[in-house]
């Protein structure tokens, strides 16, 4: 099943899997099994040999790899490591007297411990640098433009759901007009405010909350580019202007599209 170099068919690296039937490896599900580390020995070797030569499989590995990378978040954290682990780790770090490498270590695709997403990304760059995919880039650009045109109207409005945090009942929605960067937040079953308190909206980027306004009624507006943030949350803060930083865990929170 090896020996293919460049596939003369349509694919889109950013939009994920496409046209797997054009590649025997992709059609048989090798990329998915590869990112799940479920290929048996012979298949691993064959697929590693094939992967650098096949843009379809590279696209599938990248897309499925990104999906698989989310799976750890499904783990219920019922157990915590012992405090001694932190001490052991920091002692090992302190004892590691090797000087810092001055250049990145070479990427070895045969090294299974190397994160595959980055190894594949490196392979893609290498292939691109050799010009083997130049014509495909043009095709991708055309496809993306076409897709963007088709999706333009659909993409104007985004709806994000907000779910209650532990012990809370509130739920809500954010209706976001992307082109105008304006949103409406609707939250139901908010806990009652005490005198002098307000609800405050927080937009969270990489774990860092930024205040996005206060409100006292179930519906309010938000101005700004929500695409810069991963999460929206609501807390109760001292009024009338809220807090510079949140003073409690959120009542309700939801994921925002990028």
């Amino acid at each position, binding site marked *: 099943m090896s020996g293919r170099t460049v596939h003369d068919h349509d694919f889109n690296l950013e939009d*994920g899997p496409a046209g*797997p039937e054009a590649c025997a490896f992709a059609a048989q*599900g*090798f990329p*998915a*099994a590869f*990112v*799940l*580390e*479920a*290929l*048996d020995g012979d298949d691993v070797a064959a697929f590693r040999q094939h992967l650098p030569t096949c843009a379809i499989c590279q696209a599938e590995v990248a*897309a*499925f790899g*990104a*999906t698989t990378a*989310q*799976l*750890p*978040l*499904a*783990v*219920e*954290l019922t*157990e*915590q*490591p*012992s*405090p001694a*682990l*932190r001490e*052991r*780790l920091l002692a090992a770090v*302190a004892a590691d007297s090797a000087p*810092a*490498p001055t250049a*990145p*270590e070479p990427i070895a695709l045969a090294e*299974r411990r190397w*994160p595959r*997403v*980055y190894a594949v990304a490196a392979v893609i760059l290498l292939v691109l640098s050799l010009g083997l995919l130049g014509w495909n880039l043009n095709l991708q650009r055309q496809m993306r433009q076409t897709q963007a045109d088709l999706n333009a109207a659909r993409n104007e409005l985004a709806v*994000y759901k907000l*779910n209650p945090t532990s012990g809370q009942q509130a739920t809500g929605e954010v209706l976001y007009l992307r082109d105008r960067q304006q949103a409406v937040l609707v939250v139901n079953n908010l806990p009652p405010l005490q005198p002098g308190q307000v609800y405050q909206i927080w937009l*969270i980027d*990489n*774990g*860092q*909350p930024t205040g996005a306004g206060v409100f006292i009624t179930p519906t309010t507006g938000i101005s700004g580019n929500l695409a810069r943030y*991963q*999460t929206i949350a609501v807390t*109760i803060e001292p009024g009338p202007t809220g807090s510079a*930083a*949140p003073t*409690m*865990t*959120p*009542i309700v*929170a939801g*994921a925002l599209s990028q």
Partner: protein
Amino acid sequence: MGESTTGPNAESDQALLAAVQRRDERAIAALYDRYGGLAFGLAYRILDDRGAAEDVVQDAFMSVWRRAVSFQLDRGSVRTWLLSIVHHRAIDRLRGAAGKSRRDEPLDEIDRIAQVDDPWREVSIRVQGDVLKRGLATLPEAQRQTIELAYFGGYTQQEIATAMDVPVGTVKGRMRIGLQKLRELLSGAGVELT
């Protein structure tokens, strides 16, 4: 509701990793405080052995410490990178220790680390985790089981085929279709796939 917390951790993952690249030991400690629990949870889910899971977590963080210079800060997620290392090493260990007793000794009563360093990062992770769990729950049972047996169980396609009494091709197909559906569900729910 109502519990007071300290302010948010000011350092982003990228900033912490940049500090690790400069050999700042405090930064690797901060990364551990941020993701050590998640890393351990993943390793423990795979290995079902506290000691082995802790070994894997320590090994993974040491790998981050030593290989940080090879990580391109403008590409990819530090969390994803770290957890990929944890997963690879846990699977390696599981397959290397086939046949061993998974619970060699009773669990010790261990004080839980109750203090959450950064509730906002925790919220983001939990929101994504909720989306993922809902997504997995919507998959057909055979696809979900196949993905979980491979990713969390460390089983190969052949082992899964034998266990489920189906051809290997069916296992691969379930993996592919299952991951494709999961990707669509996550994208539709606004989870950033990096």
